[in-house]
């Protein structure tokens, strides 16, 4: 299966590690992965700020870049939900809408793809990590991503997933909302941090980097330098490597200090 990997702006710029982890997992699940060089943004930042052209024009760039692939995978529920909305933006151009519909129906969020659409299941991983998972809104409510991350993490021996209270309540990111109404966003992030930390995790996990940056940003500002905030793909990829003995210490792989509980 030939996969076009849509890396997403935030992963490309801020945490490339998630991109590499995603590709490692996709290859382990039997895919051939390509990264179209001229890909850009899904358009969501502009579109949700009221600039419709951001959606329609970038939809066409996406079509150009990815139409030739068997499937498209992105490590973000929020970007995939935006992409899934593309056909609806072209009600007046049925032919284009139909082409887009064919493409977006084979465009998947990474964890959903690995669970339901990949050629083969992921090999078992191993990683000692106490974690809690935040359900990002777009993935959860637009794409039905709920069991996928949990099911995948369960294949990783040693991952101890403790559910936090209100896991499905928004962390306050919301794209431009997090800047325009930063005071509310901060309070929402605070609530999220409180519920997450109540499970005493080594790491807070999620499937959308926007949310993860929001949560990590609040944690660090509160003075918490210890709790890691990771994409599920990072944990799964580390687990795969650790299981095959390729990395001595999982903590080094994720680029942060090895977690120690005192």
């Amino acid at each position: 299966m030939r996969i076009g990997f849509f890396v997403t702006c935030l992963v490309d710029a801020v945490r490339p590690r998630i991109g590499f982890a995603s590709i490692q997992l996709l290859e382990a699940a039997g895919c051939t992965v390509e990264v179209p060089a001229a890909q850009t943004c899904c358009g969501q930042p502009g579109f949700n700020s009221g600039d419709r052209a951001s959606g329609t024009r970038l939809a066409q760039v996406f079509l150009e870049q990815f139409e030739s692939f068997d499937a498209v995978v992105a490590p973000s529920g929020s970007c995939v939900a935006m992409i899934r909305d593309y056909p609806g933006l072209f009600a007046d151009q049925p032919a284009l809408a139909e082409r887009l519909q064919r493409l977006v129906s084979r465009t998947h969020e990474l964890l959903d793809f690995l669970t339901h659409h990949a050629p083969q299941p992921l090999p078992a991983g191993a990683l000692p990590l106490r974690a809690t998972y935040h359900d990002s809104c777009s993935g959860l409510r637009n794409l039905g991503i709920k069991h996928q991350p949990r099911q995948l993490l369960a294949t990783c021996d040693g991952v101890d997933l403790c559910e936090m209270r209100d896991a499905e309540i928004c962390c306050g990111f919301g794209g431009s909302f997090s800047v325009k109404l930063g005071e509310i966003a901060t309070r929402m992030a605070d609530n999220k941090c409180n519920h997450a930390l109540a499970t005493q995790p080594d790491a807070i996990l999620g499937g959308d980097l926007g949310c993860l940056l929001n949560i990590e940003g609040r944690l660090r500002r509160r003075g918490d330098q210890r709790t890691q905030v990771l994409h599920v793909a990072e944990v799964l990829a580390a687990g795969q490597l650790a299981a095959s003995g390729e990395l001595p210490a999982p903590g080094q792989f994720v680029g942060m200090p090895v977690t120690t509980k005192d």
Partner: protein
Amino acid sequence: MDATSHSFKRNVHARLGDEALQANLRRFGGGFADRRRDAVGRVDDFEALRDRASEIRAEVLTHLDHWLLAFEAEATRRGTAVHWAETGAEANQILLGIARAAGVQRVIKSKSMVSEESGLNAVLGAAGIEVTETDLGEYILQLADEPPSHIIAPAIHKSRDEVSALFAEHHGTPLTRDIPALCEEARQHLRPRFLQADMGVSGGNFLIAETGSVAIVTNEGNGRMVTTLPRVHVAITGIEKVLPTLDDLSAILRVLPRSATGQDITNYVSVLTGTRDAGADDGPEQNHVILVDNGRSRLLGGALHDALRCIRCGACMNHCPVYQNIGGHAYGWVYPGPIGAILTPAFLGLEKALDLPQASTLCAACEVVCPVRIPLPELMRTLREQEMEQGLRPWHERLSIRLWRWLALHPALYAVATRWGIRVLRWLAGKDGQVHRLPGLDGWTEGRDMPAPQGSTFRDQWRTQLAAREAQGKARAAATPVAMAAAGAARSKAP
């Protein structure tokens, strides 16, 4: 009602810093949401009930003129006087006219959000007519001289101690923390007002075209007394509230209380038709309905049409994480939460509520519970589009979005811009790998750090790695992508 929706950010700042309010919001927290979940769980197929309710409301709005005229004809035939008001002010004048003609001196009210829109109490008060709110929450707020902060639980922002202090001040009674005692106290003060009033003013949850009736859904029983004890009853409600038949009412009542308070049915459902029958002991001698437009007809057939489906259950605010943190008053007008973020700009004008459509993460928690399936996030996004098209957003925001879009449409330039952005962020970052202050993005960095980028972009690193893979001539090199990325990250300045 005077709006403060234009100063939403100031309102938010004040509410987030109000410790007493925050404690009250936390205390009730997800109470309604939990009760709704339990109530929905007791039904076989709640989604089918939502579908049915949505269809009924959608159908009514498609032929609203027809159903309103049908309602008017039937209500008139049964002795109810139907009045039409284009604005809230007009509704107030109609009601005042009815009161004067009937020599009314004392009015008792049950809850009506439309009368909050029109500011009815102030107008009656200025005309020398005594008005008493009889819904417990509204009564508390009348004593406190505050507007409601929630459409079904108007005083939800008040603690029992605050209520106790209010009652002590106005009733001259000792403080008590006993809630049944507080209720009894209100009851004792309200009872004579019920018996002395010459006019009862109620809202109307629904208008039934088939029977010309007004349907009222309540829990406290005050609605029954307001609509049947005084000699004149006036229901004041929005033109969108009409339903074709009693069967339709029954379908809507399956979703309304469950969505609102998590009840299978409310304590009272009253269907009020016409005036007192000859020889009957109760019921009003005069029955009036004032149908208020106040901006609603402008929405028909337009981009916000679906918002008129609303049956005022409050589920959207009960599930909205923004509402739950700032409370209803911050929204600055009658309707708070997601539906308020749409109705306030729709009714008052977008320029008077610029921040409200922005006051959502579009998390869609509201959309998945709305009993009539209003696409609330989509409507908020539509209003954001209107703000953009009408030039109502700040110039720098419009400019930066255009610039960003232009870059995103030119992948090579976008890649260059990303590289430069990364450099700036890494340069700004402290030793802990966090950016503590980001000029232009203070909204973020006032309360949160910004985790700095790890190094060069994914795509730049990927290009290097592809070359390495090819050089090694193996499909899967011994060093896997992630290990190499880790090695790369270790070589570059560690964030």
